[in-house]
């Protein structure tokens, strides 16, 4: 089923369309999206709000069912994928949200372990050790036992990154991870994300409005009115 191109790609979309509503209220949000992300590549998706970025992200994240066109994520065709197959794909995708979406009743360490708990065949201690390693990797080794409300915005977002990476994803999806952060913190968080994703050989697709972080991308994709604009530029390797 996988052709030559998709063997090295974590995302392949062909003619992907999506619409909300029915009848007269029907609104087309995605129109014939042709799009690939290679393994280990870091792609930034920008565009005005309401242009369909988030819809594209939820489709790739296997959170919505595909209506029309083809979408293959991590080698799994998602068109006509049922709930269970989409859930299995989600296990291999790390997600970082605009709000950090940490579990309030869990400590930083436990939050990260919720990610590590998805790994099969590991003992509890091993999964806890993984959680600690990741918190150390995002520089929060001292804050294992703290609850989200005791952490700053940047720290919370770093916990969210650790949680996403603890499940050893092959693909990271991030939706405006810097939106709630000040410029310097946002920059640090994205740098960290890029570095860790690189080390893991993990593809990254990040939606952002933040012009200060565009340079971390290997490739920049702009979207407008449900279409990807031609002539997306490739950043020079830094």
């Amino acid at each position: 089923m996988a052709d030559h191109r998709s063997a090295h790609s974590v995302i392949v979309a062909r003619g992907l369309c999506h619409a909300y509503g029915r009848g007269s209220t029907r609104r087309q949000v995605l129109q014939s999206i042709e799009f690939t992300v290679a393994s280990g590549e870091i792609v930034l998706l920008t565009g005005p709000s309401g242009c369909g970025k988030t819809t594209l992200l939820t489709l790739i994240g296997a959170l919505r069912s595909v209506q029309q066109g083809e979408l293959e994520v991590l080698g799994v065709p998602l068109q006509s994928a049922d709930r269970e197959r989409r859930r299995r794909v989600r296990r291999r995708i790390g997600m970082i949200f605009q709000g950090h979406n940490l579990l309030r009743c869990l400590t930083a360490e436990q939050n990260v372990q919720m990610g590590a708990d998805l790994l099969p065949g590991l003992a509890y201690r091993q999964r806890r050790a993984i959680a600690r390693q990741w918190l150390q990797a995002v520089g929060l080794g001292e804050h294992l036992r703290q609850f989200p409300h005791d952490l700053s915005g940047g720290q919370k977002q770093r916990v969210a990154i650790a949680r996403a990476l603890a499940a050893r994803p092959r693909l990271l999806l991030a939706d405006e991870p810097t939106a709630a952060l000040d410029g310097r913190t946002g920059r640090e968080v994205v740098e960290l994300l890029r570095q860790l994703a690189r080390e893991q050989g993990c593809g990254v697709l990040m939606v952002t409005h933040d012009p200060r972080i565009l340079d971390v991308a290997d490739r920049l994709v702009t979207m407008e009115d449900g279409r990807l604009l031609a002539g997306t530029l490739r950043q020079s390797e830094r």
Partner: protein
Amino acid sequence: MPWARRRIPLAWLLLVRQPVRLAIALAGIGFAGILMFMQLGFRDGLFDASVVIHRLFDADLVLVSPRTMSSISMAPFPEGRLVQSLADPEVAAMTPVQWEFVLWRNPETRRTRSILALGFDPEDPLLSDPSVQRQAPLLRLPGRVLFDERSRPEFGPVAAWFRAGRSVQSEVSGQRLRVAGLVALGPSFGADGNMLVSRETFRTIAPPGSRGGIQLGLLRLRQGADPARVQQRLDDQLPSDVKVYTKEQFIEFEKTYWRTSTAIGFIFTLGAAMGFVVGCVIVYQILYGDVSDHLPEYATLMAMGYGLADLLGVVAREGLLLALLGYIPAYAVAQGLYALIRDSTRLPVLMDPQRAGLVFLLILSMCLFSALLAMRRLADADPADIF
């Protein structure tokens, strides 16, 4: 790999990290549990109290009149039927018993109140209670009674006076009676108090209409005899003016009367059911609120790749934990209240394992049922909404 399935105890953490909500939930479950314990305790206590004496009868088979409906309407039958049954080779001995309600005059206030009097021959065994057996010979003197010290206080401070060494006298049907000793039986639905007298004394105090015949015949069988078979045989041989029960049947007969002829069973079962419903509503509210508050977090977990089944498991475990945590205080408080009830009403309300188990099952099903309803809220956890 023993720990491969161990996960973060999310259900537990959700509960304990919201101590106020947990406290409210436990108070609600505890309240429901106590209500169920009380209602069922009263119901069983009342039914048990109605057969305290029945259980104590030293008998394998019991003869009563077919017109007898319960312990408060014991009809007489000819004593000859009891003698006839002695002809059966497997019947070893008999005790004729007279059973009437008489008016006892409170020795302190001089007010009268209805008390159950049992008349028997002091030479015959009546109750398998050592203190009764020991004191029965005291009844050989006329006008002597063994008074039930657990009788309700309205009969006067008989036990206290007697223990203090005073001579306690009362008057029944114009006859002066003297308390010769105390026994511990207990009041029931029908009888607020009990006393034991000899048949001679009984004859002097019984109402004129009931002086012929006996109300109860106790039969003891030879070792190894099968009560059910002998009962069958006697029932066939004896005329239809007498009925033969095994002791167990006699106890059931009395309990069935109170269960079916009065609203008591219904009232207390309804009370317990209300406790159950109140508990369901409280647990549902708590769990529904909990799920609603954490909906974005549940959606996040689904986005991470946790399945709906995992999340349903979390809610179910919350219900299970609430049941366990709520049962413990309910059990402890019920123990205390049972002791209070025993003291103030003298009803035999005890925490028997059967009821303890039943209430636990009720609390458990209450919590799991509510959890099941609250889970419907999880259907609203759409991971696509959280981006």
